[in-house]
């Protein structure tokens, strides 16, 4: 099999300025690499090139840049980072769009709301912890065959599908003024849970069986770190790579929490 021919474009190079840190608690530094750019190149292909040629612009031998990556199709969420200050997936970041001219500079930094593991790789465990806190699942009876699930209209399916496309990348958290870096797990349950988890609460409350746990989910959304911590900056929805209507979810859960609180006040349940 022969690889497809690509039309030859003028060879050019792009300068990558990368914020590097050898490990947690270590000092950070900038390193720059000049990377020859082929047509269709993206940030990942450039990081791959740097890994094979880790020499900085001042001629110093360095090491491959650590980063997270998976599908490279913008569907797994792994390769999220700050590119020229904007949070996004690096796989879908095409160099021709970001740095069209020879010698253009691209700045790569790790997300700032999660602890750095190394270089561009961060620890997003708190994000998954928030899904546990939200009970983001349908409490099925088990895996034995018990017939189909609840009926769903195409309209409701479309709403749930959109919410369910959340790939836990963390863009909404990076952009949120209320979401702060919390290194220690002990503080996660009191800190703002974030738009993604609020939206997942809505997703599962919308499901016929998932709704059984609606009350538990709303309890998790009351009080410190819950939905009322949202400052309504609406940055989340602007940076979501999947265009998930996060602010609608926050509004919907906000209303549900209010009703839930009033009901709890009067019934004690």
């Amino acid at each position, binding site marked *: *099999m022969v690889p497809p*021919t690509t039309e030859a474009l003028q060879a050019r190079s792009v300068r990558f300025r990368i914020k590097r840190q050898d490990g947690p608690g270590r000092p950070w530094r900038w390193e720059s690499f000049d990377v020859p750019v*082929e047509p269709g190149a993206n940030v990942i292909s450039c990081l791959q090139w740097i890994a*094979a040629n880790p020499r900085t612009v001042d001629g110093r031998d360095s*090491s491959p840049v650590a980063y997270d990556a998976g599908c490279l199709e913008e*569907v797994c969420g792994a390769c999220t980072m700050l590119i020229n200050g904007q949070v996004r997936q690096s796989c879908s970041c095409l160099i021709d769009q970001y740095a069209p001219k020879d010698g253009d500079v691209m700045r790569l930094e790790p997300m700032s709301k999660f602890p750095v*593991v190394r270089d561009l790789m961060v620890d997003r465990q708190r994000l998954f912890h928030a899904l546990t806190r939200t*009970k983001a*699942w349908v409490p099925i009876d088990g895996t034995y065959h018990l017939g*189909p699930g609840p009926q769903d209209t195409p309209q409701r399916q479309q709403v749930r599908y959109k919410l369910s496309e959340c790939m836990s990348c963390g863009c909404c958290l990076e952009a949120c003024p209320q979401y702060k870096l919390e290194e220690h797990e002990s503080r996660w349950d009191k800190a703002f849970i974030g738009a993604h988890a609020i939206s997942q609460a809505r997703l599962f409350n919308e499901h016929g069986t998932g709704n059984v746990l609606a009350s538990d989910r709303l309890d998790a959304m009351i009080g410190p770190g819950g939905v009322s911590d949202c400052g309504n900056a609406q940055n989340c929805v602007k940076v979501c790579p999947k265009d998930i209507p996060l602010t609608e979810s926050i509004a919907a859960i906000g209303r549900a929490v209010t009703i839930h609180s009033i009901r709890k006040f009067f019934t004690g349940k």
Partner: protein
Amino acid sequence: MVGGGLAGLAGTIRIAEAGLSVDLFSMVPVKRSHSVCAQGGINAANDIARQQGYSEYEHFDETIYGGDFLQHQPPVYEMVHWAPKIIDLLDRMGVPFNRTAESQRDLRLFGGSLYKRTHFAGATTGQQLLYALDEQVRRWEAQGKVNKYEYWEFLWPVLETDDTGRRCVGIVAQDVRTMQIRAFRAEAVVIATGGCGMIFGKSTNSVMCTGAAASRCYQAGAWYANGEFIQVHPTAIPGADKLRLMSESARGEGGRVWVPRTKADRRDPRDIPENQRFYFLEEKYPKYGNIVPRDIATREIFDICVNQGLGVGGGNMVYLDLTHLGREYLELKLGGIIEIYRKFVGEDPALVPMKIFPGVHYSMGGLWTQYTAKDDLRGMAMGAANSMMTNIPGLYAFGEVNYQYHGANRLGANALLSCIFDGLFCGAGVANYVLEVVTTTSARLDQSIYDAAARQQQEIIDRLINARGTESPYQIGRELGEEMTAASTVVKSEQRLLQAIEVLQLLQGRYQSIGLSDTGMWTNQNLSYARALGDMLKLAEVILQGGIDRKESRGAHYRTDFPDRDDANFLKTTVAKYDRDTDRPDIFLEPVETGLVPPRARTYGKVAASTDTTRPTETVSV
């Protein structure tokens, strides 16, 4: 459980449900596993198709015919009968399957079938299925029945030998952040690590699909079967870092593949009138048209581009045209893939035909596994402890990493099914093995077994860290990918494969003198890659040698020097055993259980196409 894709998660759920606790290891957070990339859907017999004469039996027959009769039939029979139940289960878990106006689950056509039997959630079905299972596993985790070890890489199985023989009693794994190496005890180990696309350099696979885990099991004594059967997906988008999948659902929903009838036609595709377009799949396969199975579509596209020079602009591309389907329809049914094309190519498939070319996609081959058939061969015995167990007792292989179900070519939308089926059906067998077969629990084994296994891995890592050679692992990996893609994908021949073996041996030699640019012991991805590369080279040899030994053409394996299927000699599994003395695979052939559907010619109703008369002699026949 090693691997947190569909097979690993489904197995985890089933085993936890049986009351056992599961340690789940994954190189990535399980929600980011490669199953997330599956797009088109999941096959199952359904009420509408049944009223048109379809049933589980037709699903079974299609799968066998699509696989060119190379798979054992009882496991396939069992799987297709579970399919409708699996759809119901996923539905209960909350998978947002597309719905019809009457709130029924919507269906689409897929390759190798004339019936609509593919259930889907937009064009990100794998993502939606993975998330549903991920959520259920999180639920078990919250109850303390599942412990996740994410960012841990499987390095080796821990084997123990006593008077009853050898068995697997744990694994050695490495935290890819802290680089800590540890041995873990287990009563049984399931490998569910997916495919090996990275061996081919650029593929549709995720970056962690190196095949290293399977290769390590193989080097530890597990057999590897049918390695030569690598599926090359007909429609991928070539990219600088990988080949992005363009789902078969694009064709299932009405997408048409064509090239201009004139060579190197430079016109905008929208300006080329209908009568000057060559819809070669529709002409050659009037019955199936654009939804012929993948191996056939891939060879036809390859033939059009490489042999006939009819590719778009004279290059290696054909059009996949969705422009006649309308934007609203596309967004509803194919939104996810339309978006991928838009983002990565910068053109709108609703307006301009997409340009695509085949790309390495799936491994039909994998770790050799056993099963217990029912007496009449119609299915597997429920709960049998050896279901999908490798030749090493206690070591199982689920999902893409085993060689079952798909034979010589997998049908689209059968992979999600086989992965989840393995987890659910064979997970029960694993639980039974632990509860009923294992007599000495791993807790009672001597710690020295585990210490020795961990030490052995530490030595391999230390050797790599201290290596001061000049060869770059990335360069070797790149050359490996280029050679494997050139020699062992769409078209193969003995001469070319032998040449590739020589190249491989040179690469293996150079691997002995690599040097790492990063010698630190914290999140050293350079080291992890270099370690995996050594195992990829070993598995590549299995793939090549299997291709050399199989002197016939069948499904995805096409040999120009043996263009026909040869049932008399090769209706057999190629099974590779690692020979420690020669450091090479030793291959033997094993018969295939074909007791339910006798092999027949596999033509998909092919006829000669109008411009097909001028084909060169060195041609790709199907």
